[in-house]
C-alpha cells in the first residue's frame, strides 16, 4: 500500500518530519519499505509549443524542432523522437536543467546543428513509463508555464507500506492516518462530503435482492445522473499515478480514488445498458458464463458469487471483476453505483481460482469495512460533481449476513499479564479509545466494542495486541523467563554429531545437495523406489523427492568433475523419502548417512564403515556379499548389525557412474541412521583383560576366492575358542604359482589365558585345531 503524506494530512494534523513519521509507521506495524520524495526536480522544465519540424541535414534518427518556450521566439532543439506535430505542447528541459538521472542540459551541437535544450519523454521526468515518444501535454496550457505548475505537481512524500493480512483498515489512506493520529494523539476525522440529492428518486429505478446472504453482507446502490465521461482533474490523476494506478476517466478514477482513500471498492453499471435494473446477488450455477471487463470469457463455479440483472443474466463476478455488457463508456450518462461487502473467503477462493487478483479483491479478501459504504458513495459523487454528476434521492441498502461483533470483555490484569506491563485500566481505556475502540469500564474489566473497520480483532488477545501496538513494543520492559529446566541434546542428536565428526575425522568433507530430483534420477542410480513426487513443482528437476542420498552425491561428484575437481571424499547426512509399504499418515521419511569416495575402491568404503562402527561402539556386525541394483555387483556387501540390515557398503555400479557422468570409480557407503541408531550401541562395559603373557602364532592359508575372508576368521575364532584374544588379517596376496581363483590369507593369532601362562603344548594344540577346522570347513589349505 502506498500513501502520500499530503493525503494523510487531509485526515489528521500529523506532526513531525517525513523520517519521523516513517519510524512511527514502522513501530505501528506498517513497515515502511520505501520512502520517496515526489514532485521534485521539475526546476527548469517548462511547457513549450512545437512551431516547426524539419529533417536534420546530416542525420536520419534525429530531427530539428523549433519550439516556443513562452517568449514567442523559435528555439531550435535536436530531438530523437518523431511522435509530435506542429502545435503540440511538450515538456522542454531548458539549458541548465539537471535531469533526474543527473545529466545537465547544455547548449551543444549535434551533427553540426545547435540544440538549445531537450524535449522530454514521460519516463525521463518521472511522470510515466513511456521512454520512446515525447510526452504530449494538454493543449490548453500556456507555453512558458513551469511544468510543475502546469501539471499541478506538488512536492510530497510517498511511503510504500507493507500491510499485513490482518490490517484491512490500513489498505486505505484514511486508515493509515487513523493509526498515526492515535499514536501522535492528534485528532482524526473523516470529512462529511457536501453533496445534495436531486432528480428522480433511485428506489423506483433500481432494486436489489440478496439471494445468498452468506455471500453478501451488504449491497448498497446509488443512482447517479448527469454523468459526462471525461479525463479526471489533474490533481486527482496525479494522486492515482503516485499510488500506482493509471488514470482512465473520471468515473473509473473516482472509483479508484475512493477505494484508495477509504478502502471501499465500488462498481459502476451503465444503467442504460442494463437489461432490467433489478439486481440480484447469488452464487453462480456451475458452468455459467460471463465476459468480464478485460474481454475474457470466463466459466463460473457454484463457489463464485455473481451479480445478475433482472433477467437473471450474470453481469459481474462479485467483488472480483465486472462484466463487459454493462461497462460504462463515453456515451454513459446514468450509472448505478454499487458498494458492497462480500464474504472474504468466497472472494479469496474465486480470485485465486480465476487468477484475478485486483486491488478490489485484495481489500474484500481481508475484510472491508461494511459501514463505510454510505460515506464512500457520497465521496464518489463529490469527486464527480464538478463534471455535472448528481445523486438521485434515496439509498438502496440491502443487507445479508455480516459478521456479528459483540463487545469483547477485556481483563485489564490479563492483558498486563500477557504483555508483562503495568498499564492502568484508565490508560488502557484511553489507548483503545484513540484507535476508535469504544470501551466502558466494567469492574476490573473493559467492555470493548471493536470498530467495523477492524474485523480481524475479535478476542481479548487481539485487543491485547492493539494495546501493545499503541503502547509501543519498544516500551515493554525486556525480561527473561525464570526456568529451572536443563537443556541439552537428545542422545539421537548427539549420535548425529558423532556420525558427522567421525566422517570429518576421516578427512571426508560434508556436502549438502538439494533433496529434489528429476524424473529418472532414481532409476538412473539403480534405485527402484517408487519415490514421493511433488504435485506442483516449478521445474521438472525439482519434481521428485529423493529416496536415497545416492543421486545427489553422484551429481555432486559429476558437477565437480566437470570443473576438473576429482578425487572428492564427501558425505551427507539428510532425510530421504519413500512411499510406505502400508497405509500411514505420512510417507516414509528416514535420516541417512551417505558417503561417496571418488577414485578409491570398496576397501576404503569398508574402512569408513568400520571406523563408524567403532565410533558408535556397535556390537558385532557382518558384511555379507550382496548385489543391490546400482551398486558394483562384485564389490558390494550389505551391512547387518545384530542381524538387522542397516545399509550397504562397496562401490557404485560402473553403469550408474556412466549415467551420472562420474569419471572415476566411487567407493560407497549408505546407512539408514534411523535403523542403525535404534540398535544397541554407545556405552560399553569394561571387559577385564588377562595379566598373563601372550603368544602369537602366524597362519597363512590358500583360500578359494569364493570364500570370504570373514568366513576364515569365523572358523579361526570358533577353533581357537576363548584363548584367542586378537585376530588380525595381516597379508593378502595372489600369485601365478598359486593359480587362478585362489589367494593367500595370512593371520596373526594372539593367544592368552585368563588364569595361567600357556604352555608350548597348549599353544601347539590350539594352533593345530585352528588349521584342522579351517581346512576341514572351507576349501582352504595351510601354506607351508
Amino acid at each position, binding site marked *: 500500500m502506498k500513501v502520500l503524506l499530503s493525503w494523510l494530512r487531509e485526515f489528521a494534523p500529523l506532526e513531525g518530519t517525513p523520517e519521523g513519521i516513517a519510524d512511527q509507521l*514502522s513501530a505501528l*506495524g506498517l*513497515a515502511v519499505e520505501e520512502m520517496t520524495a515526489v514532485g521534485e526536480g521539475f526546476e527548469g522544465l517548462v511547457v513549450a509549443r512545437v512551431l516547426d519540424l524539419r529533417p536534420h541535414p546530416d542525420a536520419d534518427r534525429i530531427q530539428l524542432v523549433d519550439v516556443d518556450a513562452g517568449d514567442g521566439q523559435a528555439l531550435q532543439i535536436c530531438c530523437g523522437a518523431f511522435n509530435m506535430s506542429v502545435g503540440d505542447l511538450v515538456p522542454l528541459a531548458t539549458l541548465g536543467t539537471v535531469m533526474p538521472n543527473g545529466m545537465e542540459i547544455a547548449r551543444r551541437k549535434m551533427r553540426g546543428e545547435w540544440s538549445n535544450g531537450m524535449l522530454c519523454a514521460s519516463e525521463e521526468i518521472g511522470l510515466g513509463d513511456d521512454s520512446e515518444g515525447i510526452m504530449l501535454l494538454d493543449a490548453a496550457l500556456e507555453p512558458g508555464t513551469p511544468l510543475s505548475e502546469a501539471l499541478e505537481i506538488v512536492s510530497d512524500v510517498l511511503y510504500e507500506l507493507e500491510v499485513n*493480512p490482518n490490517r484491512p483498515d490500513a489498505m486505505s489512506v484514511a486508515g493509515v492516518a487513523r493509526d498515526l493520529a492515535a499514536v501522535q494523539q492528534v485528532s482524526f476525522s473523516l470529512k462529511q462530503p457536501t453533496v445534495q440529492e436531486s432528480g428522480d428518486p433511485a428506489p423506483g429505478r433500481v432494486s436489489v435482492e440478496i439471494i445468498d446472504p452468506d455471500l453478501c453482507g451488504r449491497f448498497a446502490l446509488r443512482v447517479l445522473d448527469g454523468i459526462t465521461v471525461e479525463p479526471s482533474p489533474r490533481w486527482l490523476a496525479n494522486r492515482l499515478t503516485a499510488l500506482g494506478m493509471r488514470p482512465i476517466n473520471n468515473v473509473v478514477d473516482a472509483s479508484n480514488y475512493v477505494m484508495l482513500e477509504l478502502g471501499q471498492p465500488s462498481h459502476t453499471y451503465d444503467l442504460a445498458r442494463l437489461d432490467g435494473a433489478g439486481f440480484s446477488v447469488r452464487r453462480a450455477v456451475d458452468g455459467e458464463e460471463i465476459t468480464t471487463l478485460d474481454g475474457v470469457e470466463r466459466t463460473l463455479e457454484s463457489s463464485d458469487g455473481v451479480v445478475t440483472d433482472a433477467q437473471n443474466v450474470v453481469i459481474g463476478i462479485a467483488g472480483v471483476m465486472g462484466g463487459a455488457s454493462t461497462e460504462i463508456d463515453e456515451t454513459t450518462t446514468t450509472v448505478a453505483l454499487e458498494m458492497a461487502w462480500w464474504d472474504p*473467503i468466497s472472494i479469496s477462493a474465486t480470485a485465486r481460482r480465476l487468477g484475478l487478483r485486483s486491488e478490489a479483491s485484495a481489500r474484500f479478501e*481481508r475484510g472491508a469495512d461494511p459501514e463505510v459504504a454510505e460515506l464512500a458513495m457520497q465521496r464518489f459523487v463529490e469527486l464527480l460533481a464538478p463534471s455535472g454528476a448528481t445523486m438521485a434521492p434515496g439509498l438502496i441498502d440491502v443487507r445479508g449476513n455480516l459478521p456479528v461483533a459483540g463487545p469483547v470483555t477485556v481483563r485489564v490484569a490479563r492483558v498486563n*499479564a*500477557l*504483555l*508483562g506491563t503495568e498499564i492502568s485500566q484508565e490508560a488502557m481505556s484511553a489507548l483503545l479509545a484513540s484507535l476508535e475502540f469504544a470501551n466502558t469500564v466494567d469492574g476490573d474489566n473493559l467492555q470493548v466494542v471493536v470498530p467495523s473497520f477492524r474485523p480481524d480483532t475479535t*478476542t481479548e*488477545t*487481539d485487543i*491485547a*495486541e492493539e494495546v501493545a*501496538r499503541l503502547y509501543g*513494543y*519498544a516500551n*515493554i*520492559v*525486556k*525480561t*527473561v*523467563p525464570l*526456568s529451572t*529446566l*536443563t*537443556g*541439552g*541434546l*537428545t542422545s539421537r*542428536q548427539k549420535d548425529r554429531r558423532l556420525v558427522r565428526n567421525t*566422517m*570429518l*575425522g576421516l*578427512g*571426508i*568433507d*560434508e556436502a*549438502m*545437495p*538439494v*533433496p*529434489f530430483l528429476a524424473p529418472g534420477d532414481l532409476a538412473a542410480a539403480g534405485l527402484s523406489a517408487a519415490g*514421493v513426487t*511433488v*504435485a*506442483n513443482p*516449478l521445474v521438472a528437476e525439482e519434481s521428485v*523427492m529423493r529416496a536415497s542420498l545416492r543421486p545427489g552425491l553422484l551429481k*555432486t561428484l559429476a*558437477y*565437480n568433475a566437470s570443473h576438473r*575437481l576429482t578425487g572428492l571424499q*564427501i558425505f551427507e547426512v539428510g532425510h530421504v*523419502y519413500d*512411499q510406505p509399504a502400508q497405509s500411514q499418515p*505420512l*510417507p516414509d*521419511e528416514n535420516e541417512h548417512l551417505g558417503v561417496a569416495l571418488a577414485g578409491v575402491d570398496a576397501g576404503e568404503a569398508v574402512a569408513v564403515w568400520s571406523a563408524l562402527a567403532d565410533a558408535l561402539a556397535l556390537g558385532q556386525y557382518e558384511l555379507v556379499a550382496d548385489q543391490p541394483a546400482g551398486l558394483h555387483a562384485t564389490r558390494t556387501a550389505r551391512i547387518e548389525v545384530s542381524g538387522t540390515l542397516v545399509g550397504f557398503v562397496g562401490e557404485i555400479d560402473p553403469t550408474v557412474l556412466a549415467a551420472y557422468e562420474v569419471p572415476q570409480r566411487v567407493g560407497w557407503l549408505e546407512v539408514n541412521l534411523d535403523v542403525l541408531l535404534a540398535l544397541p550401541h554407545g556405552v560399553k562395559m569394561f571387559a577385564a583383560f588377562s595379566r598373563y603373557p601372550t603368544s602369537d602364532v602366524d597362519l597363512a592359508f590358500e583360500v578359494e576366492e569364493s570364500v570370504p575372508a570373514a568366513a576364515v576368521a569365523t572358523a579361526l575364532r570358533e577353533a581357537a575358542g576363548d584363548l584367542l584374544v586378537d585376530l588380525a588379517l595381516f597379508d593378502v596376496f595372489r600369485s601365478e604359482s598359486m593359480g587362478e581363483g585362489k589367494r593367500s590369507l595370512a593371520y596373526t593369532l594372539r593367544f592368552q589365558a585368563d588364569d595361567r601362562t600357556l604352555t608350548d603344548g597348549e599353544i601347539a594344540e590350539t594352533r593345530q585345531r585352528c588349521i584342522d577346522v579351517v581346512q576341514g570347513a572351507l576349501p582352504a589349505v595351510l601354506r607351508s
Partner: protein
Amino acid sequence: MNEIDLDAHLAQAATDIAAATDLAALKDLDGVLLGKKSAITAAKRTLGGLEPDQRRALGLRLNEVRDELTGLLDERRRHLEVGERAAQLENERLDLTELDHGRRLGHRHVITQTWERLEDLFVGMGYTVSEGPEIEDEWHNFGALNFPPDHPARDMYDTLYVNYGDPQSTLLRTHTSPVQVRVMEDQEPPIYSIMPGRVFRSDTADATHMPVFHQIEALVIDRGITFGDLAGTLEAFTTAYFGEGFTSRLRPSYFPFTEPSAEFDIRRPDGSWLELGGCGMVHPNVLTAAGLDPEEWSGFAFGFGLDRLALMRHDIDDLRELFRNDHRFLSQF
C-alpha cells in the same frame, strides 16, 4: 705371564682399543681381552701353582690390569656411541617442508556449523532441541497453527504439495512451526525448546531464494510467560550470538499462530538494522488445538532463517553457493 708381559699386554691392548672404529669391533675386542679365552683369564688360572707371595702380587696386578682394560673399553664405547648416534641422525635428516602435505580433517558444511552453533547457544540457555518430519500434513503445517482453510494468510507461503493421500493434504513443510505443534502434542509443559530444520517453498533459486532452505525456531510454554519475556529472550540471544554491542527491537506484525505478533530486528554496532525474523505470543487457538488451556499456559515463539546467518558470518553473497557443493566452496570452511 709375568708382570713385564702384563705391562706389554696392557700397552698393546690400549693401542688396539684406541684403534677400534666401531662398536662391533670393540665388542670383539672386549671378548678377546676379557673373555674366557683372554690372556688375563689364562693368567688367572696359573695363580694356583704359585707361592703365596707371588700369587698375591700377581693376583693384585691382574685385577688392576683387568680394571684398566674395562675402563679403556667403556671409555672407547661411549666415544663410539656418540659418534654413531651423530652419524645416525645425519643419515636420517628430513626436509619437513617436503612432507607438509599430510592428513586433513573433513570440512563441516557452513549450514551445519551455524546449526550446531545455534543449538549449543540455546542448550546453554536451557533449551532442548526438537525435530519433526519434513513432509508434513496440512493440519500440522497450517490448520493447527490457526490458518483457516482458504485464509489469505496461506498465500504468505508458496507451498509445495506432494502426491500423497488426498490432494493438498500432504506437503513439504513451509516452515519449522509444525514442530511446535508436535512438541506441544507430545510433551507436557513447561516447554523450552528450539526446532532447527529444513523447509521448502515454491521459489526459483536466485542469490537470496532457494526452494529448500533452513529455519530455526524457539517455543517456550510455561506459566506466566509474557511478551516482555519474548523481548528479553531475543535480546539475550542477540548478544550471545552476534556479540557485544548488538541489540534487538520488535515491530508489530502478523502471523496467524501468534498474537501479539512481531518482527524482530537486530541493531548492529554501526547503528544499521537487520530484519531477522518473526515472533510473538503463542495464539490461544494454537494452544487450544494442542490441548493446552490458554488460561493456564502462555508462551512465545520466534523463528528466523538459518542460512542467512551462515551467509553473513562467512561473507558469502549468494545463497545458491550453499547448495551447489563446489569443492572449492566446501573446502574453505
